[in-house]
């Protein structure tokens, strides 16, 4: 069990000693039951930190944002940032390290183990509560949550309300950390990894296209998936053809000749392209925090696209993202015995 008191004490200590400039964590939200990101810079505020199954966000995103912000500061504070990271989040940090986004010394990982649980899916929770509004979710034993509502306490089976990714999670314990709270559980008793994906793969080609066409058709191209993704940190996305990044090195030709790989219009073909390019660019990098799917306003199962390539990479190339920051990335490496039989 993770005791928030210990996390707060650790955060306070870090801030008091000034070894980090900020602790990225969670605090009680103001809109609904989900916790919200907290940016604690003052030791006195460390008591605002919370840790419970509503801490869904992948805070690694804010490490990325902080680095971007730093690059514009004249005299940036280069002390490390502490981040509260679940298993998946710590893998995101590992991928960012692998991509040299920052160095290991720049980040202090406060790992938290999800134990046998994980984080809740807000929609599943509403459904399980039959319209009652949750105000607090706490772990209860190893397989259920104690949910506080206006009408009192309800005990909900974890399997009913856990986020899809948590149900299949293989990294509930943060492998990479400077300090860790909570213990490791080998067998969590949930479906194996890629179970949901397997069901989708089992459909026929036509069914799969009908499925995806239906979803892609609805895409608004709001790019929320991209904005929330810690790996989508490119200065300019290759699918963008509207925003023109201009700096002193941009040549006149570059300004004149923008490649429009994808049109901005939210039509099925362009939406498909957007999601395909995004999936390919996340191959070997996506650590399945599923934030993209969570923030999608039209419920596109984006996670499945990323899952597909994660599975192929694992099965065919023995590659798992976020395990070792020193390894070359999936597509920047190969093995002599990579599959070859698909080639004529």
């Amino acid at each position, binding site marked *: 069990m993770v005791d928030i008191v210990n996390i707060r004490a650790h955060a306070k200590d870090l801030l008091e000693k000034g070894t980090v400039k900020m602790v990225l964590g969670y605090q009680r939200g103001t809109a609904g039951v989900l916790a919200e990101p907290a940016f604690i810079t003052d030791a006195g505020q460390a008591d605002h930190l919370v840790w419970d199954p509503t801490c869904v966000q992948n805070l690694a995103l804010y490490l990325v944002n902080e680095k971007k912000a730093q690059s514009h500061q004249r005299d940036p504070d280069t002390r490390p940032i502490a981040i509260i990271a679940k298993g998946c989040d710590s893998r995101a940090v590992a991928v960012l390290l692998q*991509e*040299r*986004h920052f160095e290991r010394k720049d980040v202090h990982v406060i790992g938290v183990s999800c134990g046998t649980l994980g984080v809740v899916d807000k929609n599943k929770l509403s459904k399980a509560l039959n319209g009652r509004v949750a105000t607090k979710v706490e772990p209860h034993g190893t397989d259920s949550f104690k949910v506080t509502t206006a009408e009192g306490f309800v005990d909900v089976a974890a399997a009913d309300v856990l986020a899809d990714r948590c149900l299949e999670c293989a990294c509930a314990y943060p492998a990479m950390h400077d300090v860790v709270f909570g213990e490791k559980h080998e067998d969590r008793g949930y479906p194996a990894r890629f179970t949901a994906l397997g069901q989708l793969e089992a459909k026929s080609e036509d069914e799969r296209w009908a499925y995806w066409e239906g979803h892609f058709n609805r895409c608004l191209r709001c790019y929320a998936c991209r904005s929330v993704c810690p790996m989508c*940190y*490119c*200065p*300019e996305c*290759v699918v963008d053809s509207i925003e023109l*990044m201009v*700096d002193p*090195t*941009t040549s*006149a*030709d*570059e300004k*004149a*000749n923008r*490649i429009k*790989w994808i049109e901005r219009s939210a039509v099925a073909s362009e939406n498909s392209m957007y999601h395909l390019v995004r999936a390919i*660019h996340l191959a070997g990098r996506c650590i399945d925090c599923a934030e993209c799917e969570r923030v999608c306003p039209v419920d596109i199962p984006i996670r499945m696209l990323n899952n597909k390539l994660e599975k192929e990479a694992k099965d065919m190339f023995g590659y798992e993202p976020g395990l070792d920051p020193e390894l*070359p*990335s999936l*597509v*920047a*490496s190969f093995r002599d015995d990579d599959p070859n039989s698909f080639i004529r």
Partner: protein
Amino acid sequence: MTARRTGVFVCHCGTNIAATVDVKRVAVEMGQEEGVVFSKDYVYMCSDPGQSSVIKAIQDNQLDGVVISCCTPTLHEKTFRDVSTEAGLNPFRCEIANIREQCAWVHSNRDEATEKALKITTSAIRRVQNNEALTPIGVPVTRRAMVIGGGIAGIQASLDLANAGLDVVLVEKQPTLGGHMLQLSETFPTLDCSQCILSPKMVEVSKNKKIKLLTDAEVTEVSGFVGNFKVKVKQKAQYVDPELCKLCDDCTHVCPVVVPNEYDQGLTGRRAIFIPYAQAIPASFNLDEKSCLGLNPVVCGKCADVCEAQAINYDVKPKTYEEDVGAIVVATGFDLYGLENMGEYGMGKYEDVLDGLAFERLCSASGATGGHVLRPSDHKEPKEVVFIQCAGSRDPENHCAYCSKICCMYTAKHAMLYKHHVPDGQAYIFYIDIRSGGKGYEEFVQRGMEKDGTVYLRGRVSKVFEKDGKIKVMGVDTLAGRTIEIDADMVVLALAMQPSKGTADVAKTLKIGRDKDGFLAEAHPKLRPVESVTAGIFLAGAAQGPKDIPETVCQASAAAAKVIQLLSKEQLEHSPAVANVRLSHCTGCEMCVDACPYEAISLTGGGKAYVNEVLCEGCGTCQATCLRAAIDVKNITQLQIFDMINASIGG
């Protein structure tokens, strides 16, 4: 600047293109493409008037980009880039649209071929309009060459190079120079003794200060590029110091191990410590670690005990040399197609069925029988000998498809030598046809028939088997139309030549291509016969294809001449079409650094990718790996590909 004054030149290539592609229509339609201000067709663009017309058009119309729609760029890209330069246009503003090999020659429907030619040409126009004007990058040259293989080809190439003043590293896998030529007895068509003409050259190599000879050595790694290769050579442990060895032969007398002597094609035995030939260079005994009792003085150690010169040291380790060279000549030679593959001729089971090289050893004065032709099985003089040509060659279904080229001649020679050794014997040759092209070759074959009574039987041998101490040869004489049975005392197979066993590995290490038969591939079958497809690597001898000694020597000298030409320059020009980083987009993720096959990319202190242009070969692996479109190869940028895809689809 995007080129906006493009010229298009469509070549008829006589009727090669014009017969299937409506070249006039291509010229007219291309003239209407955006940015094209000049367009014409002409019967032979590469002819002198054709080239002149391109120059004139560039100058008259102030063209800032040209597309030549013609044959493959491997043929005339250079021609037309030179033409552009002459006209004052940067050569990198010229692109070739291949509408011959990739269009006119492979399609027969005129409309379809024309449609495709239009797409190919438009694609090239779109590309050239975004080509940058570039200047080649100058790279210093290492004025030193490596020759791989110490047979006659490698020896000749090394001597030519050294005599031209270049330092040479000659790498030979065996413990001695000489290759297969040193095994031969006499050579056609003049019947001079092979060792007599080869050993002076071998000595010349050993005496030449410019040549560093590494025997028992193999190339394990090659990096770098034309003008600046880095080669790792691994040399087996030299247990006998060639400097100290006095060739006294005491060691072989005490060595308890006997193994078949591969230099005698297994007809004799040798010790674990041995000298391949009396003429071996380096002139030294060798310890074969595979057959030696273990290099352990406790187990044996007899040879070291008797060696007065104290030349033997069991503790020597293999050595790795790192050589910087500007060019490499590959002369890895041939091996015979294995007897064991010849099911119809006994699969190597019969002692008296020999391959050609074994017969050479029988005829050779230094060979197994001291120069007497005797049957290996019972050491009797064979009175009837059957020679079978095309054994394993010209048989695409079962063996090698190609003609091994030298077998007709060496079989004629074998029959003749046999007759000289056994005057009362009879030689029969089964042949398909006789290929005796070459100076004095046909006369040589005739002499064998007329003076030495060689009987030529036109037909194939269906079966060879042992019976009552004889080798029964069942064949057919297609000229007489009858079957033939000969009770022979010995059968000699003229087995096909194939690339030596190490050739595949060498090709892989050097990244040079091989042809369908496994021989090293030349850059062009007619015009660049001694160059490999990789710049700075040249080919010589039978590794490139079956050939006889004079031809091998020719090619070796030609390869040497090419190397001399290459290394005569102060510096080489490196293609400027290299990767270029768009700093604004680079995040320093290092993926390109990991993916670059040449280690040409590194991260700068500022965390951005930096391309070492001299090392970059412009392959574009980085381009496809970068997720951020932050790295592009010049003149084949993503924007250009984007436009080319559009043009190729016809959109």
